[in-house]
């Protein structure tokens, strides 16, 4: 019936809007998921003279957290990263575009949650990993395959939703 058409269309629209409320339009799936972690070989912040490449972390799942000392949001997730590190998660840092080289001083001051930090001064490794901003966090499994990615600060909520389910059963 013609007269009910506007209401019917609106009801369908309402349904979509309701579903839409629970979706995040900014969350774009990373094309890197399911692919091997891009290789790099970068100096280690904590141990001058040594280099780190993702292959060295193989064997158990690990996290790569891309951050920078100039990034305020990174400071916001820092307490949670400390918590993660304390609970035994293997957290590696990618110290991204830190032209002022403040990372070591900053970590000494606020605490270092990372096993180690790879120093990516010019941001090239970040480009290979598809980093668009900081902070970003990748989950890499024991075989060196990227399993999850989060743009923005990590939090308990994000962790339980995106990362914890993937780690369960694999042992972290």
């Amino acid at each position, binding site marked *: 019936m013609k007269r009910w058409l506007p209401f019917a269309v*609106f009801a369908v629209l309402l349904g979509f*809007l309701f579903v839409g409320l629970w979706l995040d339009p900014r969350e774009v799936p990373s094309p890197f998921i399911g692919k091997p972690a891009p290789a790099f070989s970068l100096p280690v912040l904590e141990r001058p003279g040594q280099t780190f490449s993702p292959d060295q972390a193989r064997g158990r799942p690990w996290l790569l957290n891309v951050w920078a000392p100039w990034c305020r949001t990174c400071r916001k997730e820092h307490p949670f990263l400390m918590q993660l590190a304390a609970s035994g998660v293997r957290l590696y840092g990618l110290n991204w575009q830190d032209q002022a080289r403040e990372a070591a001083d900053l970590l000494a001051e606020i605490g270092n949650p990372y096993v180690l930090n790879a120093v990516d001064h010019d941001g090239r490794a970040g480009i290979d990993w598809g980093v668009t901003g900081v902070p970003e966090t990748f989950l890499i499994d024991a075989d060196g395959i990227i399993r999850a990615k989060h743009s923005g600060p990590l939090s308990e909520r994000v962790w339980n939703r995106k990362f914890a389910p993937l780690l369960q059963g694999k042992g972290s």
Partner: protein
Amino acid sequence: MIPELGHFALIVALLLAVVQGTLPFVGAQTGNASLMAVARPAALGQLAFIGLAFASLAYSFLTNDFSVKNVASNSFSQLPPVYRLTATWGSHEGSMLLWCLMLAGWTAALTVLSRPLPAEIRARTLGVLGLVSVGFLAFVVATSNPFERLLPVPADGRDLNPLLQDAGMVLHPPMLYMGYVGFSVAFAFALAALLGDQLDAAWARWARPWTTLAWVFLTLGIALGSWWAYRELGWGGWWFWDPTENASLMPWLAGTALLHSLAVTERRGQFRTWTLFLSIAAFALSLLGTFLIRSGVLSSVHAFANDPARGLFILGLLAVVIGGSLLLYAWRFPRSGTPAAFGWVSRESLLLANNALLAAALATVMLGTLYPLFLDALGFGKVSVGPPYFDAVLVPLFAPLLFLVALGPLTPWGQGSVADLALRTRWAFAGALVLAVAVPFTQGGIRPLAALGVFLATWILLGGGVGLAAARRRSGGSLGSLPRGFWGMQVAHAGLAVVVLGITLVSNYQSERDVRMNVGDHVDLAGHRIVFKGATGRAGPNYVADRATMEVTAPDGRSFTLYPEKRKYNATGVGMTEAALRTGVLGDLYVSLGEHLGGQAWSVRVYHKPFVGWLWAGGALMALGGLLAASDRRYRRAAATEGPA
């Protein structure tokens, strides 16, 4: 103390809205005059209390009361006072409060000016507005309290988003909201007509000037928004087909269709059901626009998942207000439609075409805006719909619409003839054809789309001239005695033509250069020579900036200096590009400072934007036309002679 006062005033306003949304209905149903009369003091009281709440919030902003969470999140001690004031509506909470204030303002204006209306209709109309107000005030009070305190009190605020610190943003949101909310009046009239089963054409005459006025505000709001984007986003774009913009374009398209269908309903008593539907649709789309922006469903300004309460509340409000009115519409759907009493070539048929094309354009914009949401909700992944879609589908819809704009006013009501129309417009047509070739030729080459755009714009202008000449003959040679409604239409259509000219020329003939400049380097663009004289540091009130000095020599030999800036805001550390413009009738020169490349070198972007100013000038003309039409003596006289029933 002041914020608590504001909060309290808001709650009182909510209670008054409940009164306004219930008792007048009961009065109208039972014929109780004193219950119906409650609407007026309730509406005026509501305006006073929401005004008080709004003033309290503005006071907290102006006095830097950072113990108020909203102030702490959106203001800063170094923020200049004018932006502290505009920060009042710069946040979600403040903007919803502004929404309520606007609604109360429209309602109060209606109570004052609607005395001549039949008492039941007046009571029902104000009752509907009261119910809408209940919904929005409850939303603010329950989920978006702008007066929430913050403990411990921060030493300073987090500053207003630097993008919003601009003259265009001072007026854009109030204008836009005035438009959105203004459609509530036509909506309330339509619902009152449906509720009272008085579906004659009378309500169309009452609703028409209000709708026109709302449309004027919405037009200005959209134009200001576009002007702001042009100046502030740093690369001279003026429309992005962004969900936020589409959210304001959809009610505008529905409102434009409504203006034209109201004309038919008022003058000829036709299209009644359709006009009712459009009145509901225009306001429904305003609400939908508010929802789309405020919930973050499409453009996640605030990650929505953090606060589902707000989105759910507005969605519920949408369901009740729009769903309820569409159900009422279906239920009271006039059984006996008025048979079409007009010929194939008549003003009615042209306005019908206008409505069909506007409705199609509206559906197109809506589909493009919501498509990503549809696919995502159905699990088909993420897509984004951008300018290529909108350009491709809207040009074929707007081109015939613009062609008909020139013909509509020249065609008589009832029955006209093609031969007569062709005869009257032959010179306008020929003139437009000549200009369609000549104007693009002077701008650097003929392109099909440029020729089409110029043809349509000049066709509207010349067709308007034909109409003016005919009206002048009919009125015995005096243009001054023509009614304002006629002038309003002519001015608004001319404004549309000016917008079309601006869009056509700037999108076809703009040029840009992206260069690295050292001190003393120059770049040539569209006959201008721009010389980089160096950049120096400068401290603004709440930012520090690198300011470049650019000496420009125009094609006519005159020279002037532009100072584009790269700013860094103190509170947030956010960087902003503040472009420098030289505005002219024939076009703008736009210089934007990019990155510092070391030493004295900077990356610089320069744009030449021919006729871009016509876009906003045309928008202002359209609004002026609307104002003229809304102030036509006919409505004032009609109101005066129409004693209470």
